[in-house]
């Protein structure tokens, strides 16, 4: 990482963020151009602005773009959710999927689809309520995990251990609900457990987009509270910060972001762990720059994973979650090996 040292992005987080989002746009263009009918970047741009072939436009707008935009928002949501979670628990190994929040959201999604579908396998309520349900599932699960791991504070490793157990419980519960059916598009229920963006459509994007943008903006507005929390509870209380209240608010932000991501893309694992780590290495620990940068990295990770998922073994899809796990799990073990026991403090 010598080149990063020389450039020292910690002092110029703005340029770093611009660069990472340029990379995001590039990957989006390349991904939009590849597939069974390859299009050059120029053609893609032309089609996007309404020029070019009718045929090109149909492929892009109806098939490829929804997935790519969905990957963008899901990646940003998971990354920011992980960044907030790592901050409030002061636990570098925390991420929504590792502490069971993702599993709780998946459970709620499957519950939603089971409860509100009729014999014709169609939904009896609007799908717009789905993110809210996922959010509730994520929040309740997070509270259960925090409560169960509370013992004079929350030791980082205990949080993970309890999270893993609760995730196993939620997975078992999800299986029970799927078996109980009738379920709206039974095949779709399995998508959430694998983590895939296969089958995204525009109406879903209109639901996820405002949520993700709103929640990220709120997280940025809470940057001061976040930075103060990083200093430790004593100092934070000393400077007049309402520690517990802030932490609960931030936790809700994190579970909200996980909820919307899971509602449409399922449990794409390890993005919430990887992105904040990469971001801290490159732009440093200051929350506002770190969070924006991790949003970019998260988007990149999911975009690339989905791109590979779509193209590598075409016409077969290998779910995006497989690729993020292939990178994320070894990295998690690496962190585990280098982590000191006192690496995190009690939260």
């Amino acid at each position, binding site marked *: 990482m010598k080149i990063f040292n020389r450039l020292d992005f910690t002092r110029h987080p703005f340029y770093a963020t611009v660069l990472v989002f340029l990379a995001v746009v590039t990957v989006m263009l390349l991904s939009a151009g590849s597939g069974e009918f390859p299009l050059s970047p120029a053609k893609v741009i032309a089609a996007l602005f309404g020029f070019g072939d009718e045929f090109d436009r149909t492929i892009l707008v109806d098939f490829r773009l929804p997935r790519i935009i969905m990957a963008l928002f899901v990646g940003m949501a998971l990354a920011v959710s992980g960044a907030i979670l790592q901050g409030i628990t002061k636990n570098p190994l925390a991420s929504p999927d590792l502490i069971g929040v993702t599993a709780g959201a998946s459970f709620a999604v499957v519950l939603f689809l089971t409860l509100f579908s009729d014999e014709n396998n169609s939904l009896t309520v609007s799908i717009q309520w789905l993110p809210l349900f996922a959010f509730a599932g994520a929040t309740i699960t997070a509270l259960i995990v925090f409560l169960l791991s509370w013992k004079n504070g929350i030791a980082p490793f205990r949080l993970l251990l309890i999270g893993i*157990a609760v995730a196993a419980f939620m997975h078992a519960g999800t299986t029970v609900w799927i078996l109980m059916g009738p379920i709206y598009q039974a095949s779709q229920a399995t998508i959430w457990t694998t983590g895939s963006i296969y089958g995204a459509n525009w109406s879903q994007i209109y639901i996820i987009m405002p949520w993700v943008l709103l929640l990220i903006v709120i997280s940025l507005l809470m940057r001061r509270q976040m930075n103060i929390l990083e200093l430790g509870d004593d100092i934070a209380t000393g400077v007049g910060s309402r520690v517990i209240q802030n932490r609960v608010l931030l936790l809700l932000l994190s579970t909200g972001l996980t909820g919307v991501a899971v509602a449409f893309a399922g449990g794409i694992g390890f993005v919430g762990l990887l992105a904040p780590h990469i971001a801290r290495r490159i732009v440093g620990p200051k929350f506002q720059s770190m969070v924006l940068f991790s949003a970019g990295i998260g988007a990149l990770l999911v975009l690339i994973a989905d791109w590979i998922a779509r193209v590598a073994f075409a016409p077969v899809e290998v779910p995006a979650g497989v690729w993020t796990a292939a990178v994320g799990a070894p990295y998690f073990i690496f962190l585990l090996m280098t982590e000191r026991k006192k690496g995190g403090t009690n939260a």
Partner: protein
Amino acid sequence: MLHTNTTRGWGIAIGIISILFLMSASLVYGYTNTTWHDAYLAFFHPTTSNEHLIIRDVRFPRALIACFVGACLGVSGAIMQSITRNPLSSPSILGVNAGASFFVVVGVVFLSVQSLQSYMWLSFAGASFAFLLVFILSSTGREGLTPLKLTLAGSAITALFASFTQGLLVLNETALDQVLFWLAGSVANRPLDLLVTALPYMIGALLLSFLRAKELNVLSIGDDVAVGLGQRTVWIKFFFGVCAVVLAGSAVAVAGPIGFVGIIIPHLIRSLVGLDHRWILPYSAIGGAALLLLADIGSRYVLMPQELPVGVMTALIGVPFFIFVARRKLGI
């Protein structure tokens, strides 16, 4: 608490009787209404009636498989907890089940494996690979092997293998059809041939570990003391590691990945018979068999008329237990 060897001996006898009772119950209870008398007739005055067929050809293999797989998982968990000195060790937590499943799927997809015998070997290979990998990975690093690192590394390896397995199955749909029934972790609808193939390995590993269980006691006093007393701890660990892997591997080969039996049973058994592994191991076998038989009978009633995979049942029972142990027994 069973204190004397006499009471412990009687305990074993009672345990075996309970297992036989549970196996008979497994023949009688379920969606198709049958009575104990039917079960008796099905074996001693067989007819071709539907009830008799179900008892003989569906429920009987199922009861046998639940019994042996449960015993293997229980003993494997007890051994793993002892050699890693970690109260949370068990085949599912350390990634052994996931490793075995992954290797079997690789075999089916790339090597077009069909025979039951090769399922066994692949499963052994995967189980040992995962166990070694988790053991080595969590031993390196600043603080060496701690129970927590072992558990967390195990769950990361599980996540990795599980997602690779999923990826491979998506790529190859015929393989999916061949192994999907098996990946669910269930003792229902398994061919009895599978159990017959695995049985020699299961019984061999069970007997060997029972016979040498005394050596496990040495490990519990700590490596330094044990070495000082002239014990070759590395050799003991290796021997029992192989036993644990063979037990877990053959259980996975027969029933697919079933979690949490190996973690619940040894804890209950230790509070019942104390810390002597000469008693812990046989009791764990009985306890594991009883738990899996019970969970399997229960799994027929939860979603009547549908059945729950027994792995889901054991997870629902096992998770609260796991959390209890994590909070009580680990100094974290």
